């Protein structure tokens, strides 16, 4: 992927650039808002990471101008504040996701992957498959091989989100937001508990494990190699 980073703090930018390059992406960096907007309109990118507070032009204005010019590139906002209003403001201005500083690169990369996910070939997917695991979104039926798996509603939503992002790491925070609609960090290990229960039901009776924990990053569901 080709990713543009508009961030005025050089150390943060360096950290992000390193993280993205290590994951095999091409990343470019602009430290001024005005230059960033120019670069974003001149060249094509798969995703753009924009800091909210920038010299020259602030992040919200950049995204608004981009959207006005018809540039639909997915945008991820970085905010330094623990701003409780930032998420809503950022999403309203045309951003697609947001991340609060400080953050880990694994979180940023996982979110960028989710943002740039290609749309499904069929307009509406009703059955998702990973190896011999199959879930039917209409009947809510889950099968592993020939065995039916009974899931509670929340476990089903969790599995559905993992399978929609199959082969890509999803972070704990992403799961909290998408599966539980929690936009904060609960002290109780909610995600871990549910993952372990889901894993017991999905992988318990099989020798091939599908749900994996990626240390320091998150979880992934993938075919056995």
């Amino acid at each position, binding site marked *: 992927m080709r990713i543009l980073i508009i961030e005025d703090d050089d150390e943060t930018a360096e950290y992000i650039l390193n993280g993205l390059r290590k994951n095999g992406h091409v990343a470019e960096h602009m430290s001024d808002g005005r230059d960033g907007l120019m670069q974003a309109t001149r060249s094509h990118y798969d995703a753009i990471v924009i800091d909210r507070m920038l010299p020259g032009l602030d992040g919200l204005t950049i995204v608004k101008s981009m959207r006005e010019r018809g540039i639909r590139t997915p945008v991820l906002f970085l905010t330094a504040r*623990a701003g*409780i209003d930032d998420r809503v403001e950022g999403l309203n201005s045309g951003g697609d996701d947001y991340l609060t500083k*400080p953050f880990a690169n694994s979180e940023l990369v996982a979110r960028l992957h989710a943002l740039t996910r290609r749309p499904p070939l069929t307009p509406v997917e009703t059955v998702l498959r990973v190896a011999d695991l199959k879930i039917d979104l209409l009947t809510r039926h889950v099968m592993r091989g020939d065995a039916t798996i009974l899931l509670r509603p929340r476990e089903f939503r969790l599995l559905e989100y993992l399978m929609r992002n199959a082969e890509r790491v999803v972070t704990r925070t992403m799961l909290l937001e998408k599966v539980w609609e929690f936009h904060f960090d609960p002290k109780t290990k909610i995600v871990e*508990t549910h993952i372990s229960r889901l894993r017991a039901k999905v992988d318990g009776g099989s020798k091939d494990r599908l749900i994996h924990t990626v240390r320091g990053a998150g979880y992934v569901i993938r075919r056995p190699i």
Partner: protein
Amino acid sequence: MSFAVLSRVVRTASFGLAFLYALLFAISVVILGTIVYLSVQNAVDRQMATRIDAEIALLKEELRSEGRSELAREIQERTSYFHALEYLVVDAHGNRLAGNLPSEANGSGWRDIRVRDSRSGALKGFRVHTVLMDHGLRLSVGDDLGPSENIKTAFLEALGWSLVAFILLSLAGGLLLSVGFLRRVDAITCTAEAIIAGDLGRRIPVRGTNDNFDRLSQTLNAMLDRIETLMESLRQVSNDIAHSLRTPLGRLRQKLERAAAAPGSSMKYKRAINAATAETESILDTFSALLRIAQIEAGSRQAGFVEVEMSALLENVADAYAAAAEDQGKTITANLAPDLKIVGDRDLLTEMFANLLDNAIRHTPPGTNIEVSLANGGSRSIASVADTGMGVPPDERERIFRRFYRLERSIKTPGHGLGLSLVAAVAELHGIELAAEDNSPGLRLTMTFPKKIDGPHGNRA
């Protein structure tokens, strides 16, 4: 009264007002006086003219019926009367026949003349009417202007004095009013200055008369009370922050120092770095929790309030925690009245209940039952999170909502002591009454929501 005080009095609003009234009133008195003066003058003049003309008519008649010598004799006799008019009769050649007026009185028509008195030497004014009579005789009859001028002078004097008296009185009144006004303004200024100087406890004296000034003072006092509370809590918070961050920062420093001092393998260094990172993480967590609370308390989120399905929200939160509670040997039971709605911020309300459950799970022993309930209590909905744990001593129940407050026995439990502070901030933002009660055994936290919303989508329960 010193000059400085006087000059301040003159500049007050009430003195200015008194002065303006006095000026307006003085102008109206002057206008009224002029009108009265003119009509008095007119009446006096008319009366004088009537008297002179009546005399002229009488003397004309005398001349016609009695003849010249008789007229002269009559005039001579009349000049000796008390308050007599003055006369002059001259013949066609200008020779004086009778009368005591000087010869310059002989002219034509009405005139005012001034004559030097032969005895006193003073100038005297006369109004004279000269007419032509039979046989070419010219008769002039005059009246002393003195008395009528006296009346006019007296009137003007009276008017002048009353004007002076009035202006003095109204200025004095204005002065008194302003001094009273200033004294109360000064009291407010004094209080404000004392507060600026650092005496935050000072309040403006209230007289108890319930006038405008009293109400102003009461409002200002209420504002000062609020400011004092805020200042106090700010001070408390800064102290708390300083103290709570010192400990982990100190620990962080110790860890780094120890790692730097001891020669070790790269494995050992890595462990030290990981420990330091974890410590930093926890400090950052504390910071962001504090920032969130501050932002919630700032109240800007109220602008985004929408109708929130409380029953669904609570079910989501209770369900999210059920599995984790179960793993720790605790149970969560939900007892939720359906379709209850309130106006608020969905994310913050979710976080509030999540924090309550975090708290209940973390600070209770295995075997505890945690009950989440939502009930329709008449005009207001009531939610509660109750556990059957060890509870909180009565004298500590209010304090658990304070920042960084932790019970003696939970000092060892991980956490930064901000969870319930956030709950309190969210409750405050929504106008929710938050109370900590005894669940015997255990702790019950109840949230009484503000009055329900009305309307087609309002509460049906």
